[in-house]
């Protein structure tokens, strides 16, 4: 028990003391406690961040990409789980599930590599097929608009199968007698889905929805960093990549610590609001 606690103190709590860097003028020779305070009551770097165009873009992109992910990626696994539930051939169901879970285990680098090869304007399989059908090549990864679509699609591609697991588990918990009773009353496949399965999934759906709403300002790094390129950086830069380029590459530690802290704090606030909402509507809550 002592070892893991030490781990948490060193790698989770001590970094929190470094958050001071956000309010101070960073100098490499002093510990964060000894660094001089930044101007404007210590808030200079927060002001700088919010007047930095790159940061404002990153903020906008983070919210935009997460919202798009939510709108498209949230209903997809529910529909897929309903579909899989209708599959009666058991071995085929298992095969489908196995293959659908698979992309979740590929890294974003691998997915990026495949995307580059498949979607390249002249040599990618997708565009070759399009060309043969008489459609002009689409610059999936090199044009801002298409890039956003590709980004969102790849996200669904990777995780839709994986995210069905929890819904499928919830479906097995539904009392089978309900289905029998419904069949007796003459309900068809669609009716059963609508009146029994979906209401049975409701608690799961609500909790997961609220959870993902709470993450709207969170940001992953691997996905936008791997998929992004110079041509689309107006839409692909998110807060995590901003912190990397300005902080670790550009050595602007105070500025990027401020940005990171802003993001963490807002995230926690969102999560607690989300959790409060979940509890209010009578669900279990998550925190």
């Amino acid at each position, binding site marked *: 028990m002592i070892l893991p606690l030490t781990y948490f103190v060193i790698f989770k709590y001590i970094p929190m003391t470094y958050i001071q860097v956000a309010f101070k003028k960073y100098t490499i020779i002093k510990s964060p406690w000894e660094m001089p305070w930044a101007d404007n009551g210590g808030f200079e770097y927060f002001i700088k961040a919010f007047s930095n165009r790159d940061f404002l873009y990153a903020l906008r992109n983070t919210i935009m990409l997460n919202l798009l992910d939510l709108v498209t990626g949230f209903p997809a696994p529910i529909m897929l789980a309903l579909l899989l539930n209708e599959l009666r051939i058991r071995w085929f169901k298992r095969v489908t599930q196995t293959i659908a879970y698979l*992309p979740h285990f590929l*890294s974003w680098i691998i997915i990026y590599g495949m995307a580059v090869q498949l979607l390249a304007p002249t040599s990618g399989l997708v565009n070759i097929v399009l060309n043969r059908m008489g459609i002009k090549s689409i610059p999936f990864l090199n044009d801002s608009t298409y890039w956003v679509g590709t980004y969102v699609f790849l996200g669904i591609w990777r995780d839709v199968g994986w995210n069905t697991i929890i819904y499928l588990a919830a479906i097995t918990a539904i009392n089978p007698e309900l289905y029998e009773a419904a069949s007796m009353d003459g309900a068809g496949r669609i009716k059963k889905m609508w009146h029994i399965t979906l209401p049975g999934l409701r608690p799961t759906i609500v909790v997961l929805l609220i959870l993902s709403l709470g993450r709207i300002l969170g940001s992953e790094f691997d996905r936008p960093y791997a998929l992004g390129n110079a041509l689309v950086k107006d839409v692909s830069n998110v807060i995590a990549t901003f912190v990397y380029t300005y902080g670790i590459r550009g050595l602007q530690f105070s500025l990027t610590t401020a940005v990171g802290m802003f993001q963490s704090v807002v995230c926690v606030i969102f999560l607690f609001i989300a959790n409060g909402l979940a509890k209010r509507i009578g669900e279990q809550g998550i925190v």
Partner: protein
Amino acid sequence: MVASKKSIIGDWIVVFICVLLILICLLPLLNILARSLSASEAIIRNDVMLLPKGFNFEAYRLVLSDTKYTWSLAWTAILTVICVVVSLFMTTICAYPLTYKKLKGRRFFSAFIIFTMYFSAGTIPMYLLLGDLKMLNKPVVLIIPYCLNVFYMIIMRSFLSQIPDSLRESAEIDGAGPIRILFSIYLPLSAPVIATLCLFYAVGRWNGFSDALMFMNDRFYYPIQLLLYNIINSISDIEITTQEGFSPPGLSESLKAATIIFATVPILVVYPWLQRYFITGATLGAIKE
């Protein structure tokens, strides 16, 4: 029950959509595999679809004869094994005491740990800390800083706390200490969760690249994903191979494909074996106290 005509049509529609889904998941991988096995001229001519054209193993031969790739693969494999062992150990000794109902301050410790899941200091403080700990650019930076995942720890804790207390109590009466109880009662019973976390940690390390990107400048210690990223972007490695004169243009394309396959295969190999376990793990993860 006699299936009606309508419901048979329904079945076919469902099967059809599922087949479509399987294809969407598998075709990209097949295309990459075909490219990696094709002659480069065929790739340049845009002839390669799902089956290799001008079948050859040239790209694989090149990858395997280049020590940069082979070392990176080997290094990542070593790294993954070390990380899994360290992480599983840490996760177990963290989760096990938390299932002890008699442990003083159990709630406090739980809160202390779970808090870090919701609020983290961010990348830069971590970077500065690692700098102060003199860990930057040393191999240990790829192992220690993220060796304990709170979420996985919770999965383990939920699993362990399903084991009935009466088992522990009877062992205590027989005079077994907490360590003995852990090894002879809890761990043998928790094979599913250990297998799950093994897979999660291993995949995490094998696929991980951002920590290496940020904290590791020494190219010697680049894990495979970071190398792969550089290769796909053709920053340097590929160019060297092709400028040496022996490789026709377009070979770099099949080389990239071959590298992608190399980085993917280990996962594809392990994954089916662990599948029956990880579903349990993934659903357990949804339950929190």
